[in-house]
């Protein structure tokens, strides 16, 4: 495969990253998808839009968050110098809010009156409910019943913020089913409703738009690393559900040949156990079409989508954003995976050595660092995207550790 001059020019005008992406939606939604695309293009060209986002990210979200040198962890692993990008310190406790601020401002520009969203771990649901409260817009969150059961604190949080949480009972009752149900709502209420997708997936322009809104992560890392170490980082590590925190960290560095990028998928009980036991779409799936885009999917021979498994509700999705599929195929980003057990170990390690309880999603990325850092020289600068805090996960972790709360 020939190397492109830049890895940062995608997608093309039809929303393609290589063969991935596109706009695979019902005709009812198509005019609206085109309207979102146009509105986003106009907004991007308007300095006032950019200014408003900046202002809110600073005043409301609390950006920039630190790039923190994890000294004890670095000493313990005895290799690469490890930095944490502290997305968990954002208001609402995860990177999800970066995207929500951008999209709600777009929805307002479009004159939309009602916001819907899907959520898995509940982090995106909380972030969406938060910006809806802030901008006084009615908010409906679709969430699988299975996820409602394992993410109770976030469900209550959303309700406190004034959102309606609709339990989804189809399929395995997790993130994929929540997204189906959100799409069904959207076709039914096209005129006044904006669908605030929570990850860098879905029909064009969502993967591009969410990536742009999350790129603040990588942009800040670049500036902060320059200040701290006077140079670029050597490697970046992030977990991948739909891929928004990972692409947000990676994208600003894609054209820096010395920067290595590693994305960590959820291996659940182990990739070798088969596609019902993990949620690693790239490592263990193949290309198909779902939720508006062509991308790697967990599916059977007949093209039926499989219900993956992960200990983390935020990674439990059988697809991945299309830009990741492309970055995988061209070899720019390395895709690996971490099992539930490796993740639980990393989760506890982080709590004890750094005094930070990470989200289970982020702990997947940390598990890869635990494997990799000891083999690297001490001057290797490695950045973990600590995408969220783990308060929401303590109940399910306790359960896995056999502790009764």
């Amino acid at each position, binding site marked *: 495969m020939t190397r492109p001059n830049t890895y940062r020019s995608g997608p093309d005008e039809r929303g393609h990253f290589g063969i991935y992406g596109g*706009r695979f939606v*019902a005709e*009812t939604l198509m005019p609206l998808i085109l309207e979102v695309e146009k509105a986003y293009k106009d907004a991007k060209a308007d300095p006032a839009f950019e200014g408003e986002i900046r202002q809110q990210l600073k005043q409301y979200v609390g950006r920039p968050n630190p790039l923190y040198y994890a000294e004890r962890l670095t000493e313990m692993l005895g290799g690469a110098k490890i930095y944490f990008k502290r997305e968990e310190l954002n208001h609402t406790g995860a990177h999800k809010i970066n995207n929500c601020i951008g999209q709600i401002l777009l929805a307002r520009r479009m004159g939309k009156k009602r916001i819907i969203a899907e959520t898995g771990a509940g982090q995106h649901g909380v972030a969406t409910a938060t910006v809806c409260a802030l901008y006084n817009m009615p908010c409906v969150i679709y969430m699988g019943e299975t996820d409602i059961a394992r993410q109770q604190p976030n469900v209550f949080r959303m309700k406190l913020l004034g959102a309606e949480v609709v339990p989804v009972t189809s399929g395995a009752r997790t993130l994929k089913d929540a997204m*189906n149900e959100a799409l069904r709502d959207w076709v039914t209420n096209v005129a006044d409703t904006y669908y605030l997708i929570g990850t860098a997936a879905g029909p064009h322009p969502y993967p591009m738009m969410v990536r742009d809104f999350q790129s603040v992560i990588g942009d800040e890392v670049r500036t902060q690393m320059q200040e701290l170490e006077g140079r670029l980082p050597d490697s970046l590590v992030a977990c991948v559900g739909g891929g928004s925190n990972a692409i947000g960290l990676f994208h600003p560095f894609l054209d820096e040949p010395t920067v290595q990028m590693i994305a960590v998928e959820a291996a659940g009980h182990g990739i070798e156990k088969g596609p019902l036991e993990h949620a690693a779409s790239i490592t263990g799936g193949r290309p198909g079409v*779902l939720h508006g885009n062509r991308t790697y*999917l967990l599916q059977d021979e007949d093209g039926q989508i499989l219900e993956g498994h992960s200990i983390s509700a935020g990674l439990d999705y059988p697809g991945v954003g299309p830009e990741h599929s492309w970055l995988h195929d061209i070899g720019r980003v390395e895709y690996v995976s971490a099992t539930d057990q490796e993740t639980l170990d990393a989760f506890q390690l982080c709590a004890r050595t750094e005094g930070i309880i990470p989200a289970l999603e982020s702990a997947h990325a940390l598990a890869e660092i635990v494997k990799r850092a000891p083999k690297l020289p001490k001057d290797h600068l490695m950045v973990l995207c600590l995408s969220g805090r783990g308060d929401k996960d303590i109940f399910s972790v306790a359960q896995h550790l056999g502790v009764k709360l």
Partner: protein
Amino acid sequence: MSTDTGRIAKRFAALKAEGRAGLVTFITAGDPDLETCRALLDGLPAAGADLIELGLPFSDPMADGPAIQAASLRALHAGTTARKTLDLVRGFRERDADTPIILMGYFNPIHAYGVDRFLADAKGAGVDGLIIVDLPPEEDEELCIPALKAGVNFIRLATPTTDEKRLPTVLQNTSGFVYYVSIAGITGTASADNAAVGAAVDRLKRHTDLPVAVGFGIKTPEQAANIARVADAAVVGSAIVTRIADGLDAAGKARPGLVEDVLGFVRDLAAGVRRARG
């Protein structure tokens, strides 16, 4: 397309000659099981179905309401695959050479099968057309263009959100007929206002010579008759699929009499459609 010599074009020409609208019935392939579905298919033409839409089951039917979602799951649990769906069509074709069959579903099962191989096998089995919900004109190169080349009609959905400016794009590569989705929404939920449907069909007719079928939300023979007054065909799906669901026992197995009950309902729908312009 005036040059179209396929079963769909022939059937609409015959309906026009008879001076009546057609009834298009939807069932999901393999629902509730392959054997019962075969019996349903075989019985549909005599019960008054002028065209048959056969759902290609998919795990994630994003544009469908609860009735068709459940039908898809029943079909998948019964082991239905794209291949077995084509087998059903092939079997039907041995017994009925004229009733058009249109496969309706989502792209991924076809993508997984391989587009060219699927089109060759579908054509060979006797499939006349495809309605693939998640392939708008923007993705025509994926399946629509190859289908037209393979001699399989690609029937597009036009919706209340398809405005005047967009309509030519939607109609461009459409063949067989145009399917007007009468509501913004999913299958089996709200029903459209009759006057609005009439106006929408008139609008479509100003842009195309193709027949216009109207579906989504038609549940009773009366509603089918109302649609038959303003369109070339009425499509009934969820209401028929719900009758199938009603005919299952607690274990989800077809009770005796299911096929007869469903076909009886289709006869009522057909009577409604046939009397509409009487």
